[in-house]
């Protein structure tokens, strides 16, 4: 547990479990690990932008999810991403929302 913020560690989420460089490692391959996290942040941001949210890496250990007004929440792994995102933006983040899909499809076509 982090003594500063009281975040309990060691919660393995299934999305973290594919063995590729930078995923399992803690003490070695630091560059790979940071690159992997940066990649996750990049992909998550592309999705979260649709809800006016951004995510950033926090000390290589957690992620900080923020709204445009600065309301923020620390999340441990991607398993906590969506419940937190819904709390922050105050609406359902539904991947099956037709309007959301339409917008994404239009963006791909461009």
């Amino acid at each position, binding site marked *: 547990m982090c003594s500063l913020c009281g975040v309990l560690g060691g919660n393995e989420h299934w999305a973290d*479990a594919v063995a590729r460089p930078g995923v399992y490692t803690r003490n070695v391959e630091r560059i790979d690990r940071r690159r992997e996290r940066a990649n996750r942040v990049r992909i998550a941001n592309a999705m979260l932008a649709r809800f006016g949210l951004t995510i950033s890496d926090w000390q290589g250990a957690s992620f900080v999810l923020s709204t445009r007004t600065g309301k923020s929440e620390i999340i441990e792994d991607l398993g906590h991403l*969506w419940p937190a995102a819904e709390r922050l933006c105050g609406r359902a983040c539904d*991947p099956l929302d037709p309007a959301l899909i339409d917008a994404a499809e239009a963006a791909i076509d461009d």
Partner: protein
Amino acid sequence: MTEPQVPLLTPINLLTGFLGSGKTTLLARLLADPALSDAAVLINEFGEVGLDHHLVERIDDTMVLLQSGCLCCTVRGELADAIKDLHSKRERGLVPPFRRIVVESTGLADPFPVLSTIKSDPVLRHHFRPGNVITTVDAVNGPGQLGTYVESNRQVAVADRLVVTKADLTPAADIASLGEKLRTINPDAPLLTATDPSFVVADLVDENLSLRAAALQSTSGFYCEAPVQLATAGGAAHQSAVTSFVMTVERAIDWTAFGIWLTMLLNRHGEKVLRVKGILNIAGEERPVAIHGVQHLVHTPVHMERWPDEDRRSHIVFIVDGLDVGLLKRSFEAFALDQSPVETAAVPKRSLQEHQSFS
């Protein structure tokens, strides 16, 4: 003396099936089978299974040891407590070191909460993992139950092994049509017949992924490339609206983008996604990754040894309850595939730096 090895994570198999579908009969057979000699079986009532002639030793009032070496316990109250008690007794050496747990669920139960308990309990999840879900389907009453009860459909949908019971009481043609019906709900779980001479108990708990993969990629093609809408016994659209379909993806999938999309889907619609399973071609991976999820719960992905054949496309089977299949496919295409350009220049261009430092 070498102590028998206890696995790092003990698999927990769930035996489910509708009321009167032959769970207990199958269980009585399992208890006597050498394949389960290293198992602990959690049942509802001792009396139902009729253990007396198998009984070797009574450990306490909820636990007995059988001739086959199998440990048999009744569940009183919470299942999680019963499993923790077993774990504690094993650690203290009070019971034989079992390597597997089989849980019999009640006939009307949705199997999901049991799996969820194993994954979320802070003690259990470090010592146990979900194994195969075995669902019994009665060949006589099964078709009627599937047409009437949502629970029955859900039990079939989450199964890893489907066991058809009472097949000896039913004409072969009816069994074939039951088989087809089961295939529309659950396209890839191996279908076993309890009365078949070739039926082997060990097959039920065997977690050979290739069996699943082989069924998924069988040469007869996909069982449900087109969405299948279930009908009731009367032919009308089923109220439970369980639909299964396969998505085939040509390009390699970015694991993170897929993970973010699937967690988003399960966060919103988890209870309607009865099953997600498939073989994924992950970008940057030589070997395929098998994923396997039941409702909100996704099992730890497994790297398979090799691709089953030349086909390198990803195949994902979805079994959903009342979700719009068209929207789900569009959503997958739009969000689960990483659309942003890959940053090939993540590593600084050293040649430029070197050039500058020398100039």
